[in-house]
């Protein structure tokens, strides 16, 4: 079964290449001698999944920036290093240099004294519902769960994002520079995620992270079966959940094959009718091709193990388990499979599938070698992911796991970047990457630390002491708080 699906995927990839050739008019795509009629008419682009995969393209452009150097600070690079009295230089939106006190500062750079302060990469929240469950939390803006069908890979979170959610501004003041916005977990397949730069924008497209892959939200466990069982329909049990995943993957493989067959015929110059485009199956086929990353809400160790087998059965990869309260029970398995897990410090016990959640969850699985991520899933926790990571680290160090700040910073920067497929661009302070940088008032693992300044692509997007860099949402103008939320 597995090898057949993999073969189908290989065929899909080849066909896609051929199709691409055809559109550029390569001679190989010429109709054969038996096809006396004119070449097949191109499919109208909205009906062809391959025509415009980026149908809602990013319009994000970095804000104006100057060449900047911060010196004298303790730098956690998230690539494993801690540099005391370090220097970071960024220019043109990119990191130019990161090093010790002797690092050259280019003439003309704006120099910031970071003495006594700390520098980290911009925080990345790999599990956010900002924009789709915005503040204020009124039902007319509750856009995160298309809970009318357990299988909705056809919906895209970006179409629910309200860019004026005041939560984006709160998160930025906590150092969050990138967020993956996910649909909720009511459904087995909740829909596509979108990765956003955390910049104020009138449109969603103006925040969209250029080139970031899509994710697909899947959900294990209690939520889908509660929502649909409550409506007296499937799934109402854990086994019903798994049957639902498998059925959808079978449909996806079949759909992918129909498009492959169609493109193969066209490539040979034969006549063929294109299959009807299906938005949901497009998403699932994108996963089977490795283009869309699985973001799997799953609390329990035993359920994660089942999901790993489902993925193996249909030939796709799980990028990350979210919540993963029992990751500590299967750390070696996650490490072996190369699957990240994202969790909180100790948000646990609120339902049966989180009853075994413990503070040392992240630390134990991390020491077993698993790719560890601390996420928020919450508009309040996202503002202090540094402290969430600190509590998780302390719980490990309490039992002698000896986790350093230089290691734990990756839980909220490089590792989430990897899990959402943007680690080549951001997530660590390395020359050439996007200059997403936070200057902290103190050790960011302290309860008293504040993000003083936040840079995205080298541009200052937040300054704790300068109201000119404290953007306010349209919604909050004229309201009692006026969008100001800290001293």
């Amino acid at each position, binding site marked *: 079964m597995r090898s057949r699906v993999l073969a189908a995927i290989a065929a899909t990839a080849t066909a896609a290449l051929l199709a691409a050739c055809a559109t550029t008019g390569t001679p190989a795509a010429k109709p054969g001698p038996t096809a006396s009629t004119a070449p097949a008419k191109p499919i109208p682009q909205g009906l062809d999944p391959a025509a415009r995969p980026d149908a809602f393209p990013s319009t994000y452009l970095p804000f104006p920036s100057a060449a900047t150097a911060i010196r004298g600070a303790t730098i956690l690079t998230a690539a494993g290093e801690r540099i005391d009295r370090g220097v970071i230089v960024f220019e043109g939106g990119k990191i130019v240099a990161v090093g010790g006190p002797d690092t050259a500062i280019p003439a003309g750079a704006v120099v910031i004294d970071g003495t006594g302060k700390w520098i980290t990469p911009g925080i990345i929240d790999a599990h956010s519902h900002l924009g789709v*469950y915005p503040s204020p939390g009124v039902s007319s803006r509750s856009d995160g769960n298309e809970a009318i069908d357990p299988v909705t890979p056809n919906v895209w979170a970006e179409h629910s994002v309200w860019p004026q959610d005041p939560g984006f501004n709160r998160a930025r003041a906590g150092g969050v520079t990138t967020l993956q916005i996910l649909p*909720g977990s009511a459904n087995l397949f909740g829909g596509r995620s979108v990765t956003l730069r955390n910049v104020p924008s009138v449109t969603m497209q103006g925040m969209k992270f250029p080139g970031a892959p899509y994710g697909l939200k899947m959900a294990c466990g209690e*939520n889908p079966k509660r*929502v649909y069982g409550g409506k007296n329909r499937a799934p109402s049990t854990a086994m019903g959940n798994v049957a639902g995943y498998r059925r959808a993957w079978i449909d996806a493989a079949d759909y992918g094959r129909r498009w492959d067959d169609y493109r193969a015929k066209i490539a040979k110059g034969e006549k063929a009718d294109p299959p009807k485009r299906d938005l949901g199956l497009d998403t699932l086929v994108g996963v089977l091709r490795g283009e869309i990353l699985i973001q799997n809400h799953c609390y329990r160790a035993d359920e994660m193990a089942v999901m790993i087998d489902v993925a193996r059965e249909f030939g796709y990869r799980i990028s990350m388990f979210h919540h993963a309260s029992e990751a*500590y029970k299967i750390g070696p398995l996650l490490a072996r499979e190369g699957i990240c897990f994202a969790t909180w410090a100790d948000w646990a016990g609120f339902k049966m599938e989180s009853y075994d*959640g413990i503070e040392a969850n992240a630390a134990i699985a991390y020491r077993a070698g698993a790719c560890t991520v601390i996420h928020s899933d919450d508009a*309040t926790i996202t503002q202090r992911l540094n402290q969430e990571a600190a509590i998780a680290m302390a719980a490990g160090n309490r039992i002698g796991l000896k986790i350093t700040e230089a290691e734990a910073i990756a839980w909220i920067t490089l590792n989430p970047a990897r899990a959402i497929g943007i680690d080549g661009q951001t997530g660590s302070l390395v020359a050439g990457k996007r200059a997403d940088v936070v200057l902290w008032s103190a050790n960011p693992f302290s*309860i*008293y630390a504040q993000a003083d300044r936040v840079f995205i692509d080298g541009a200052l997007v937040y300054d704790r002491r300068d109201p000119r860099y404290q953007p306010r949402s349209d919604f909050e103008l004229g309201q009692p*708080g006026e969008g100001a939320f800290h001293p």
Partner: protein
Amino acid sequence: MKRALIAFTILALATPAAAETVAIVNARLETAGPAGTIPSGTIVLKDGKIVAVGAGVTAPAGARVIDAAGGVVTPGLIAPSSSLTVTEVEQVSSTRDDRSGKLSAGFDISYGVNPASTMIPLARQTGQTRAVVTPVLSRGGDGGHKDDSGAQDFAGGGGGDDAEPMMFAGQAAFVSLAAGDLDPVVRARVAVTLDLGESGARNAGGSRGAARVLVKAACEDARAFARNRGAYDRGATREFGLSRVDLEALIPVVEGRAPLLVRVHRASDILQVLRLAREEKIKVILEGAEEAWLVAPQIAAAGVGVIIDSQADLPDSFESLGARLDNAARLQAAGVTVAIMGSRDVNNMRQQRFNAGLAVANGLPREAAMATVTSNVARIWGMTGVGTLAVGQEADVVLWTGDPLETSTWPVTMFIGGVEQPRSTRAFELRDRYAKPAAAYPPAYQ
């Protein structure tokens, strides 16, 4: 699980709580009282009380001496409004005894207190030694997170659509979090809780005006009932809006002997509560109060205590549009007695001490922050004998590895009423089982 609980209970019974004489030396003493912070000193616990505390104190002969080695000693933290001991798993309704659904003010939460809850040892690990257990109106609570909000969106969560308007959630209780205490209720029926603002309006049928009128009428009914119990029993009184048990519960409130804990958020609603308190001559405590900073002088003048979650900085609803991170700092500066809570539900409850630290990061003086989780809670609730490190106080004492408001610290040990508390929790047992390398047999054998 069940077996573990039984074993725990037997263990607790087999070793009856013994209040020994203990001296903790070489400690930074954060007294949360008039003595302030003593950079290095000794505290002595005897017969369940604090008998000495200060820089010049020496350990009495025969006392067990604990060298704090520069660690910090604080009073036990007190959860100012919590579901501890009455909720095990928020989404398993059979484990929840924090709401009535049938009774109003008459609901008495103290009867449901469960000393075997696995959340109690966990609470002690956050430094908490006591809690005020307060009822809630509906299932909501604040423990859910966005991913689970589907449950509320589509299962019609929350109360308020019942025919009977019901804004009083019931009566609160003080509990001890001491291990092995089979009767942890220190005092039952210490207050009646009331939801106003959007929740109260919803429960009153849709608007604030209705809620406020109903509350005032309930106060009048309680007074009339108290004056004429005999007539009530003969059926010779006018009709009252609440049942007999609900009216009984409100009598201590209308007579000013017990406070009304009011959950309220918007500045104008807070002013309405202050006016209600004046008109009805009742004591009130505010909970939530995100916009309290806008009316801080009025709250201070009324002498009303405020319980807040200092993380609140989002315009979560149209009644908390002014939420700010310096709410605690501004209220304290205006002279208001502030208590800081964590999550009211048991998950995430460790947040109480971190919330106090967060308030410091946003302008609250450090010593005042320690008071917000100890002595201010006691003062607001009228608890005596707890909340500070002072001679004669209950020996509720926590020794920390360092600054108790920091992320990197934990309690080294803890005493409640002079009795040293066990350190084990269900979470630690799970941790210790899985932190080890895999063995030949499954973890269940460990």
